C-alpha cells in the first residue's frame, strides 16, 4: 500500500483517518451510524421495551405522529418510535455479528486455500463455486427450514451463505501476499503453516478484509429485514424493521406512515453503511476507487 505524502508522516490508522474524514458523504454515513448505534444501545433508556414495544393498547391504534408518539403508533397501538429503536438493536447487532462471523470463517477458508494452493485450493474453491451457484436467498431459506426459525438460526444461515463469497475475496488477497519474500523467510525459519497464516499472512490482509466486511453490512441488514418480511426471520412480537413493514401492509393505504417509518429506518441505516464502507475502501486504497 502506497503512503500518501501529507506533510508529515502518520501512522497507518492516522493516515487512513486523514483521508477518510476528507470524504464528506462517508463521514456523514459514519456519524449517522454512530447516532443509530447510540439509540440502539440505549434503547431501553429512551423507551421501555415491555410497555411500549410489546404491550398492545388498542385505544391508541394507528395514530399519526404527535408529541406523545413522535412516529405515531401501529395497528396494535404500539409506539413506532420505541419499536424502531428496539428494531435498530436487532438489525445492527445482526449485521455486525454476521459480518464478523463470515469475516472470520471466510478469512480462514480463503487463506488456507491460497496458502496451500494446488489440490487443497482446488477442492475448496470448487465447493465455494458450487455453494455460490445456489441462489443466496434459497440457501438461507433452506438452512432456516432445517434449523428452525429464530434470530440465532437466522445468523447461522446468513453466515453460511456469506462465507463462500468472502473466502473467494480473501483468497485473492492472500495470493498476492504469499508470494512476498517475508513469507519465504518465515517458512525458512521454521514457522508452522498455521502460524504463518495467522501471524504473517492475515494481519497484512486484515485492513482490506475489514473493509469488505463493512461493505457487506448494508446487504446483511437488508437481507435480515427481507427474511423477517416474508415471515422466515425474527418472529413477532419482537420488533424488527422487516416484520414491522409486513405488519403494516394491510393498513398502508390509509396510514402510510406505519410502512414508511420502519422502511426509512432500513434505508437510512443501509445507506449510511454503504457510504461508510465505500469511504473506508477509498481511504485505505485510493486506487480502489471506480
Amino acid at each position, binding site marked *: 500500500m502506497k503512503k500518501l505524502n501529507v506533510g508529515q508522516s502518520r501512522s497507518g490508522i492516522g493516515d487512513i483517518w486523514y483521508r477518510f474524514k476528507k470524504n464528506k458523504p462517508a463521514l456523514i454515513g459514519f456519524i449517522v451510524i454512530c447516532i443509530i448505534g447510540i439509540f440502539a444501545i440505549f434503547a431501553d433508556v429512551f423507551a421501555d421495551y415491555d410497555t411500549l414495544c410489546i404491550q398492545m393498547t388498542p385505544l391508541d391504534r394507528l395514530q399519526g405522529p404527535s408529541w406523545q408518539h413522535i412516529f405515531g403508533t401501529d395497528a396494535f397501538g404500539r409506539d413506532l418510535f420505541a419499536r424502531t429503536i428496539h428494531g435498530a438493536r436487532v438489525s445492527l447487532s445482526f449485521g455486525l455479528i454476521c459480518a464478523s462471523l463470515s469475516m472470520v470463517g471466510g478469512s480462514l477458508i480463503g487463506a488456507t486455500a491460497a496458502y496451500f494452493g494446488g489440490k487443497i485450493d482446488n477442492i475448496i474453491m470448487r465447493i465455494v463455486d*458450487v455453494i455460490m451457484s445456489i*441462489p443466496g436467498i*434459497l440457501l438461507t431459506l433452506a438452512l432456516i427450514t432445517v434449523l428452525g426459525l429464530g434470530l440465532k438460526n437466522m445468523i447461522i444461515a446468513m453466515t453460511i451463505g456469506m462465507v463462500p463469497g468472502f473466502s473467494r475475496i480473501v483468497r485473492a488477497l492472500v495470493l498476492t501476499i504469499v508470494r512476498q519474500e517475508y513469507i519465504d523467510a518465515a517458512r525458512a525459519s521454521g514457522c508452522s503453516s498455521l502460524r504463518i497464516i495467522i501471524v504473517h499472512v492475515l494481519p497484512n490482509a486484515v485492513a482490506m478484509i475489514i473493509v469488505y466486511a463493512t461493505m457487506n453490512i448494508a446487504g446483511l441488514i437488508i437481507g435480515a429485514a427481507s427474511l423477517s418480511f416474508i415471515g422466515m426471520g425474527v418472529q413477532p412480537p419482537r420488533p424488527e424493521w*422487516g416484520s414491522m*413493514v409486513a405488519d403494516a401492509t394491510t393498513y398502508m393505504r390509509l396510514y*402510510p406512515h406505519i*410502512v414508511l417509518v420502519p422502511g426509512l429506518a432500513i434505508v437510512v441505516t443501509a445507506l449510511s453503511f454503504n457510504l461508510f464502507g465505500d469511504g473506508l475502501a477509498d481511504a485505505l486504497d485510493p486506487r480502489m476507487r471506480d
Partner: protein
Amino acid sequence: MYKYVLKRLLYIIPMLLLIILIVFLILNITPGNPGRIMLGATAEQHLVDELNASLGMNKPVLQRYFEYVLGIFKLDFGVSYRSQLPVFQEILKNFPTTIKLAVFSVIVSAMIGIPLGIISATKRYSTMDISSTVSALFLASIPEFWLGLILMLIFSLKLGWLPSGGIGELKNYVLPVMTLALPTAAYLLRITRTIMLEILRQDYIRTAKAKGATNQRIIFKHAMRNALLPIITQLGIRFAYLLGGTLIVEQVFGMYGVGTIILKAMRLKDVPVIMAATILLATLFMLIMLIIDLMYAYIDPRIKSQFKKGIS
C-alpha cells in the same frame, strides 16, 4: 474451440452432482418425518411408520441420494409431501411467471443502466454523472420489498394507474418489474461506469485520440466494443440472480411463481419441492454462466485465437 466447449460441458456434470449433494445433505441433516406431514398430526403412529418406510426414509442417506439422482435423469423429482403430486410438473407450471419477471426486469434495467453508465463515464463529474451515481447508491440501499410497497402505494393505491397484484395481463407486471429492475439498473450503472472509465484510461484510446478520432467514434468504435463483453457478463449474472430472487417481489405483489412455491414448501417442510426448486434454479444459474463463458470465447477474438493455437 470445440475442445473447450466440450470440456466446459463435461465439467458441469460433476458440479451438478455436487450441487445436488449439498442441497440434499442440507435438507436431510435432520431426519425428516414426511409420513407425519402427509397424514396429519392425528394419524396413528404405525400408519406413519409404514408410509415413511414406503418412501424409503429408513434407507441410508447416500443410497437415497443415488436413487434421487437416478430419478432426476428421468425428470422425476419425487412427489410433494403436501399435494402428493409430482413435484416437477408443479414447478414447471408456475415457471413462466418467474421467467417473465426476470426477463422483463433484465431488459428494462439494461435499457436504463447501461446508457446512463456510459454517459456517466464519458462526462465524469457532470451533474448527470453525480445525480445518477447518487441515485444508484440510494437504490442499492432500499430493500426490494419496501420499494415494491412504495411503488404500489403511489401508483396503485393512491393514483390508481396500475393493479397491485395478479398475473393475468401485461400491466400486472409493470410494478413488479420496476421493483426488480430499478436496483438492477443501479447496479449495472455502477458497473458500466467503472468498466468504461477503466477502458478510457487505456493506451489505445489515447492513440485514437492522438490520431484525431472524434469523441463519438472513440466511444462507440473503440471503447464500447471492449466494454460490451464484461457488461454482458454482468447482465447474465444479474439475470441468473433475478431468477432466484423473484421470491420477495412475488410475495409483495401476490404473484404465483416459483418463489411462492418454494416459500410455501418451506413453511410446510415439504422437502422434495424445496429440493427440486433449488436444484433447478442452481442448474439454470450454472447453464447461464456456461453460456456467458462460451460466448466470451466466441465473441472475443483474443480468446478465440488462444484456442486455435491449441492452448486450452
